[in-house]
């Protein structure tokens, strides 16, 4: 069995943190024409590629939980919110305003609080 220290587990999750958010971007892109995405999945691969990326990031997180505590790894999920916000601005030209920034900051603080408390 490979031995992964908690630090390496954290580094692996930080490096792969854009995987889930990119999956979300692909899913959102795939919903533009749902009929094509579902019935012609080879030509319109975005939706299922998104599901696949989401699945891989989920499994990666579950595997890393074997090598480190939930309390150490859980705050890393906050990175997903930052990535998703940046990527949706970049790829879909969504507008960012002060409310969204405050909201995401509060969510990130709450993630840290929950992991301190558990």
């Amino acid at each position, binding site marked *: 069995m490979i031995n992964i220290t908690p630090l390496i587990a954290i580094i692996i999750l930080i490096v792969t943190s854009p995987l889930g958010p990119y999956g979300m*971007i692909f899913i*959102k892109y795939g919903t533009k024409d749902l009929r094509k995405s579902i019935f012609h999945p080879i030509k319109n691969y975005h*939706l299922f590629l998104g599901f696949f990326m*989401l699945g891989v990031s989920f499994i990666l997180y579950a595997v890393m939980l074997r090598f480190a505590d939930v309390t150490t790894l859980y705050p890393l999920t906050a990175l997903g919110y930052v990535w*998703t*916000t940046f990527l949706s*601005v970049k790829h879909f030209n969504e507008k960012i305003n002060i409310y969204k920034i405050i909201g*995401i900051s509060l969510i990130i603080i709450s993630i840290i609080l929950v992991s301190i408390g*558990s």
Partner: protein
Amino acid sequence: MVTSKFAIMGMVICTLITAAGQIFLKLAADNFSPDLSLVFKNYYLMAALILYAIGLVIMTLCYKYGELSVLYPIISLSFIWVSLLSFFWLGESLNAFKIGGVVLTVLGVSFVGKGANGSTKRNTNRSRKR
């Protein structure tokens, strides 16, 4: 793109379903055995996977009708349901940090919702003009 109210409600329902899925996943992990023939008889695991799949379908449909930067943060509401369900159902402890986290999550999602395109009158007028 204006985020539809139904998409936001759909995401909230999605968090309820995935939170229930997480509780089943926890129950499945408690009864987990690596024997492959038993994995498929682990009904908690099957229930968790089915709930996740339903949640994923609802989420995908909602993404069609809203901004990703608004709909994605709503997923964080599942912390609240998981905290409450694990307190009442699994008998786990609830402390000041967890309660503070739940309160901040509600506030955070409210702010993100206020920032959504089309959530205020001024925004709606502007997007109608386009």
